[in-house]
């Protein structure tokens, strides 16, 4: 058991790290989707119609 663990330690740690990154990415994608954000490739700050996507995030304090 210990032997197996020590032999595969690098793989285990690596796999965990990759899984963590993927979980983070998935969480971010879902969150952006929920907030209707990141749909377009232009970036919203420079978008002339940003107000349509984020009508509430308009006032200066939110930025």
């Amino acid at each position, binding site marked *: 058991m210990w032997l197996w663990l020590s032999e595969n330690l*690098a793989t285990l740690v690596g796999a965990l790290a990759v899984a963590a990154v993927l979980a983070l990415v998935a969480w971010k994608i879902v969150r952006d989707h929920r907030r209707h954000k990141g749909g377009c490739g232009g970036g919203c700050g*420079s978008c002339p119609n940003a107000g349509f996507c984020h009508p509430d995030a308009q*006032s200066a304090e939110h930025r």
Partner: protein
Amino acid sequence: MSITIALAGNPNSGKTTLFNDLTGSSQYVGNWPGVTVEKKEGRLKGHKDVVIQDLPGIYSLSPYTLEEVVARSYLVKEKPDAILNIVDGTNIERNLYLTTQLIELGIPVVVAVNMMDLVRKNGDRIDTNKLGEALGCKVVEMSALKGQGSLEAAEAAIAAAQEKKQGEHPHVFTGSVEHAIAHIEESIQGRVDAQVLRWHAVKLFERDEKELQELQLAQDLKTHIEQHIADCEKELDDDAESIITNQRYAYISRVIDRAVKKKASRHALSVSDKIDRIVTNRILALPIFVVVMWAVYTIAMGGTKVSIGTMATDWTNDVLVSEWICGNLGAWMEAIGCAPWLTGLVVDGIVAGVGAVIGFVPQMLVLFFLLAILEDVGYMARIAFIMDRIFRRFGLSGKSFIPMLVATGCGVPGIMASRTIENDRDRKMTIMTTGFIPCGAKMPIIGLFAGALFGGSGWIATSAYFIGVGAVIVSGIILKKTKLFAGDPAPFVMELPAYHIPSAKNVLHATWERGWSFIKRAGTVILASSVVLWFLQGFGFVDGVFGMVEDNNTSLLASVGNVVAPVFAPLGFGTWQGAVATFTGLIAKENVVATFGVLYGFAEVAEDGAEIWTLLAGDFTALTAYSFMIFNLLCAPCFAAIGAIKREMNNAKWTWIAIGYMCGFAYVVAMIVYQLGMVFAGHFGVGTVVALLLLAGLVYLLLRKNKYQDSELRVPVRSVAAK
């Protein structure tokens, strides 16, 4: 108590620049009119109780365009506490037209004469005191771009709001008109607020349709009012609306005579005018446009000595991603004893996919930077003007081209910008064709093929851009001749802003926003789909047993891809990789490149230090690559853009028509290019015949007579290149 100050003014007078300066936000400062119809709200820096409202740019308060309707209904119905009227000092006559209407609204008005830096440079003098006396309101000077006088202007507006004092109405109209207006005021007294009495009376005098609808006057009252209008019209021998317009202009020119001293004589041409003589010249305009875009794409994505973008991209690809990350990361993971599958996932999946896309970031940044400069300088507004001239001949409005200028960054805001088009058919058509313009995310596809197969020629990207523009024009003409889209062009007022030195802040901001969101997407959506793809291309059935495969041609993904691939065979890229990439491109267009990175083992090849895309180049010829590129540029856009199409169409049927049209058009064009290209290579077959028939069909649709157009094209009255 909170105070609301509305910023009103002509398009391009600097409202948004002022808004950003006052509120500290970073709204988009476009240098062309009519991209936005929304109103934006922000709070004045340091004054939490003062709300600043940015309105769309308008020339008047008549309800001809959507912008005017939005601004007018806000001013009349929601009644801000004060109006800060931004006036472009270099164009004061035309700008004051709106001012004469705003002061009738019964809301305190402060006029801020903007662009004073330019006015002074021209050697002109504006006497704000005299101007203020004549208009009956406070007039201040400012230069929003330089941040001079902005705060003072806002403070003057706050003071005016607190005083609640509205100026005396200046005598804009002549005796008989004022007489009629006074009678109208009398008859509608009590029906509207005393403050706005004059505004409503003038509008009724003009027989403004919206006004008549809203006031719902009784029939006898209407007849009574009509009598006064008719009397006045008879006396002045003109129709009521023109009387008002003409007298407003006459009034303005009296005011100008008193308060403004111009150095240059009226007829002298400014530098901008001189440049425009060449740049918007009937014959030279298009060649110049081509050369300008070619220069932009050569610097950003070409393979010459000045191609900064390509040099940086080559370095990221060859050194940063291949040598440093792929080479070392793989070796290191093996050394510490990671299982081969994990190393594969990280190096051949994540790094290969994300790295392939990230490599193009420098090219994109340079491209966006140059496009932002072209826009800010004022050149892009000329393009819309040139396109209007071409479009108008076919019964289309140049207003359809503004969304396409926006779409060079991203299709989603481009599609949304189509809202400014009032005419429903033209708007639908614009939504359908805006996606043809190569957006930022399509650039890596172009860059990839230009680099791998065309020796980095700047012409590949230039041609891709003009294929997009051409697709828009051709589609516009074809569709306009069908029953679904026939009709007169919408009126489009295109005013050309004077050329000016680009503002570093605007340009860098736009570049950064776009570049950063591209990088963010690479780290999320592209990363996730690279991992999924790596699994799909790494597993399959070998001798009836499911497991990891050595050669991804035997993978599950390959067998699925091979089912679809024949559909694309007539276009020349009937490989499973091409088919898969076309579909993954729907998630985001740059995913096409990430997909190739994973499928062609971007990382593995790179380790040997070989040209990274040689394997890819082996599967494509120049012709099939070009055909693949065309198809992927023109076919259905990414899901985000499809979502935008769905929202704007607000109708499932029309969404499908749009997507179907785009895919069909892409297929036909790619097929014509591929099959006819093959003729040069000596191939002639069934495909050639089909392609020729398709080409003939396309030409017929383009040239056939338009049944739905009146024999005489009615050209709208207000198409001007002002200045």
